[in-house]
């Protein structure tokens, strides 16, 4: 498919602050150090009964209470924002990215008769997040399956580039619930133990939960307010496989299209990409499809690829934002994270992935890919 002319950068969208809570603990340091340690945060799940499911492993955040007053995602978000020193500008436009939000409230209503069905409505969560962060506008929800927060980051950058806003707060969250776990199990998508992205013996994903935020500003506003520039969202591309509801296109055409759009939007060639933060779920088909796409775009370059999902699991709607923040940290530290749980790379990934950390080359541009049900693909270019 021919890609149309993509507008070159005029107004730069830069990330000025961010934060996260993941199964490794509170903060970016905990997640970064956890991934570099090579130890997984995926462990046996004791939140609900799992005997009849495909797996009893998941990556959960310690200390969360199930079916209590606050939903799991609100508990994570409160911890995230109450613990941060970052001040959120009141005029920031809020984008909340999630797949199932407070779905544990629907479980609670149906199982225990507490609350009402509408309490799990996504807009109800949006109001709470708006109040928690102190932004004045109503904000919006973006849901694009497991590419939700990557799509939200793309929209944030687009809003800044098109001068619709000069400050956007992207918040992302999803949690491990019986609702979601049973669904992924029914699709036979789960590894019995911990996910092993790009491994020759990989056999499925592990679910994870997380919450994260990123404050994104126009470069000029960031300079005016003397904000630290953590990185620039230089390009983005969104596409759909238009092929299958739950499985990726085998030929990788959709991801290739998203990557090419992102490279064009960033105004760079593929040779300028230093490394790739892949979606890398650990399912046989996703990882094979991604490698096929990387090989098609980068040919024999063997650009370093990694996935963090062997460490924190697949955090669904939050995954793109978490991966963007970790990629920014990788650029800062000049270290490409290892792929946790990788023992022996699959044949098509050999020379691309590694269980060890690697140095970043001088290009300092990273490609982040994500995908989701309905064949959704996203690609982001950071520098």
């Amino acid at each position, binding site marked *: *498919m021919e890609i*149309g*002319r*993509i*507008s070159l950068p005029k107004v730069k969208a830069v990330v000025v602050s961010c934060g996260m809570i993941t199964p490794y603990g509170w903060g970016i340091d905990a997640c970064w150090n956890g991934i570099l340690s090579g130890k997984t945060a995926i462990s046996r799940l004791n939140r609900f*009964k799992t005997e*009849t499911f495909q797996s009893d492993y998941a990556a959960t955040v310690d200390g969360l209470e199930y079916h209590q007053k606050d939903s799991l995602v609100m508990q994570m978000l409160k911890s995230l924002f109450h613990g941060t020193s970052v001040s959120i500008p009141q005029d920031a436009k809020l984008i909340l990215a999630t*797949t*199932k939000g407070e*779905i544990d409230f*629907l*479980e609670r209503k*149906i*199982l225990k008769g507490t609350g009402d*069905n*509408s309490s*799990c*409505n*996504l*807009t109800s969560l*949006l*109001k709470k997040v708006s109040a928690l962060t102190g932004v004045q506008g*109503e*904000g*919006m*929800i973006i*849901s*694009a*399956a497991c590419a939700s927060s990557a*799509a939200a980051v793309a*929209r944030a950058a*687009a*809003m800044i580039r*098109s001068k619709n806003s000069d400050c956007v707060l992207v918040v992302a969250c999803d949690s491990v619930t*019986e*609702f979601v776990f*049973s*669904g*992924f199990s*029914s*699709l036979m998508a789960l590894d019995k133990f911990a996910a092993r992205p790009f491994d020759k013996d990989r056999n499925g994903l592990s679910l994870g939960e997380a919450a994260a935020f990123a404050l994104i500003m126009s470069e000029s506003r960031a300079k005016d307010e003397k904000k630290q520039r953590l990185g620039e969202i230089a390009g*983005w*591309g*969104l*596409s*759909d*496989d*238009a092929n299958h*509801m*739950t499985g990726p296109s085998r030929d990788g*055409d*959709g991801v290739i*299209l998203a990557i090419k*759009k992102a490279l064009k*939007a960033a105004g760079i060639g593929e040779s300028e990409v230093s490394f790739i933060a892949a979606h890398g779920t650990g399912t046989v088909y996703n990882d094979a499809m991604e490698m096929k796409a990387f090989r098609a775009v980068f040919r024999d370059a063997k650009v370093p690829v990694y996935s963090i999902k062997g460490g924190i699991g697949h955090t669904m709607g939050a995954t793109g934002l978490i991966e963007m923040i970790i990629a920014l940290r990788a650029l800062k530290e000049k270290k490409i994270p290892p792929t946790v749980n990788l023992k022996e790379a699959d044949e098509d990934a050999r020379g691309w992935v590694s269980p060890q950390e690697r140095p970043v080359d001088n290009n300092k541009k990273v490609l982040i890919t994500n995908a*989701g*049900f*309905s*064949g*959704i693909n996203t690609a982001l270019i950071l520098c």
Partner: protein
Amino acid sequence: MISIDGIGWVNRNEYGCVRQGRRLQYKDSTRFNALLRKRIFSCPFEKFGRLDNISKMTCYAVALALKDAGIRYSRNRKQDIGIIGTNASGSLQSDIRYFMDYLECGRKLSRGNLFIYTLPSSPLGEAAIHFGLQGPLLYVTSTGNSLPSVMAMASDMILLDETSAMLAGMAEEEEAVYFFLMKKSDFRENCLSDVARVSAIVSKSVRFSQMIEGFDLLKEGYPE
């Protein structure tokens, strides 16, 4: 300039293509549940019956919007057209259906074909597959009337050259409307309206029927 080249809509009583001036009532002979799909889809829609209600409504409205805009489509001929949709209820009915079914199975088995519709973006995915839409796909919602915002976002995506064209709209269990948006050098040429005009009608309309009536104004053309 972003133009709207076609509008398709459907509810439990009737359906229509605004530009073509078509408005068909089901009447007694054709109830909604027996709606003749061959009148709406230009190629067979395999396994349509397994779709949840919002997916069905989405696909009906998208088919009518494409027909209204004169866009040919096929599952096998992919086009760089995106789709962005909204609604007020998200996937609530499908969520309840999935979880109740899981409970009725003793919390031991769940059905993947019900689970996939618990994502609010899934109806858009069904449309993308059937109509071969390979552009961006997003579900967006907010506390108020999200449809004008969705139309504005679709326009921005085209203006930023993220995609060639967009379908933007809303679908609930009993009603849906979709708009086909494209970039034009002169919006008076081969288009129904510009986005601002349609968006104004959408913003003012409290009820779905009011919005559909409002679209009649578009056929009066632009004042000279």
